[in-house]
């Protein structure tokens, strides 16, 4: 078996077997449950159009996925280093690219698990309306490169700095910066600066696509430019992580 499959296998099992993984799963399902409950029970939110509700849920799942990727990516090298499990990995006959691919496959599996967990929630809040299938399809198509890109960026910082905290803080700040034009509202997004930010912001590209296909029912051909943007984002982040993974910051220390 190739080393990256061995590492990916460990990452997947760790997610389901370790206490940390189970807590994260529980936290994510709690967030999705609370949000779904609000959407159906809150007086104002329950008056929203069904497509609007599905759009909001898809955005929440994407945000949760990006946050999960930031946490997992930050932990990928620096966390292992802090727990003393990185050096045994580096001492084994594993190429740095195999280690990176294995970790990225683990991220992909975590995103897959989150999508699986989110599917019944999407169905529960949007089954009675239109475009549920489109929501799920575009969440997978755009969410995967955005989430993996965030994870790869966090891994690059994690490998470079050797600190979970530094990597997590940096990635979260970048995520917040990416989300800020969206949170500020349509006023800013309508300006030239807002449009320019939208054109290079992968998170905005994904959310605008959800808006376009779920609410406005636009076809796939209208999403190609945005798809290219998120693919470029993934490519750039993967290149960065590959560069950092070849020069991992690790330290020696006492047995943990």
């Amino acid at each position: 078996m190739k080393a990256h499959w061995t590492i990916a296998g460990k990452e997947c099992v760790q997610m389901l077997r370790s206490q940390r993984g189970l807590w994260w799963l529980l936290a994510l399902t709690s967030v999705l449950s609370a949000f779904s409950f609000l959407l159906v029970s809150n007086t104002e939110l329950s008056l929203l159009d069904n497509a609007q509700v599905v759009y909001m849920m898809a955005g929440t799942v994407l945000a949760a996925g990006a946050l999960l990727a930031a946490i997992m990516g930050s932990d990928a090298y620096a966390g292992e280093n802090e727990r003393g499990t990185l050096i045994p990995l580096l001492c084994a006959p594993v190429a740095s690219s195999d280690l990176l691919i294995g970790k990225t496959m683990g991220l992909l599996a975590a995103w897959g698990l989150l999508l699986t967990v989110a599917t019944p929630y999407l169905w529960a809040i949007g089954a009675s309306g239109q475009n549920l299938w489109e929501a799920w399809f575009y969440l997978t198509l755009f969410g995967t490169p955005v989430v993996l890109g965030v994870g790869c960026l966090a891994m690059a910082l994690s490998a470079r700095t050797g600190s979970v905290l530094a990597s997590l803080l940096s990635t979260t700040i970048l995520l917040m910066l990416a989300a800020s034009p969206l949170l500020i509202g349509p006023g800013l997004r309508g300006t030239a600066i807002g449009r320019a930010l939208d054109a290079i912001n992968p998170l905005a590209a994904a959310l605008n696509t959800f808006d376009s296909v779920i609410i406005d029912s636009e076809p796939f051909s209208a999403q190609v430019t945005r798809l290219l943007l998120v693919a470029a984002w993934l490519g750039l982040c993967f290149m960065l992580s590959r560069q950092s993974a070849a020069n991992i910051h690790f330290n020696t220390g006492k047995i943990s």
Partner: protein
Amino acid sequence: MIDIENLRLSIDGKEILRGIDLHLQPGDVYGLLGPNGAGKSTTLFALLGLCAYASGRVVVLGGDPAQDAASIRRYVGVMPEKAGFYDWMSATAYLKWYARLYGCAQNDQGRARLLEKVGLGTEAHRRIGTFSRGMKQRLAVARALMPNPKLLILDEPTNGLDPKGRRRIHDLLVEFAAVGKAGVLLCTHLLDDVDRLCNRIGIISNGFTRFEGSLSGLMGEQERRRHYRLRLEAAPDADNLPTGVTVLGPEGGWWRVQLRDRATEAPSAIWGALWHRGWRILEIRAEALSLEQIYMRHTGQEHAYAKEVAK
């Protein structure tokens, strides 16, 4: 198996290794000694291809770690000083997973035998998170032995173990080395480990190799130097000494002195000279140098007092 000559290495602009020599042949159990921060672990990382070196010659198992790190590591079992594990795995599951990284097809019996050897036979299916520090240390030794390596590298393998645990690790290493085809590089600051296990040693300090050679040769050479303990009536005048005498310092009511290798005078003449300089000697005892004293000398820690006196 390992040929390192004049290895120099810098990390973040700071020169960590400034001239390391290390030669290990098949069948050798080589003790790499040095104080904390001397560059022992960095040397190990360099020979595994984990740290890029600036200059020098490094050959491990016939290859250059800078070029063929992954293929060299396939034949090297390593127990790093920071021996972490995935706490949620059992010992046997961890070894099975780690063996896959080496491409080893070790069966359940082989794993059970290995765990039995390190004294974890009954704990094989217990979660590693519940292991004590000593048990983790023994599991780390099992992990290093697992790929049946040609070269075994152990960084502080008995650090923090109780005497029984240390003995068990010693026995394992003796058994592994007895086969004669593999080499063992033992990085430690526990001189008892070196005394018991190693046939060759290297002492490094401040990034330099201070000594490299066979342990028996080193001990024999040191015996030719003359060390004495003197019981004195009062503290001596250490500034006024005859040629060839170095005061190493007071210790437990005695004063330790060294007579230089090529001191022309017989010891009795030197004691006479010291008496005339006011040294009221009550008793004289010759002493054999221990490995610890040799280590202290090569790492520059023994002469701290002598330097102070010289000032």
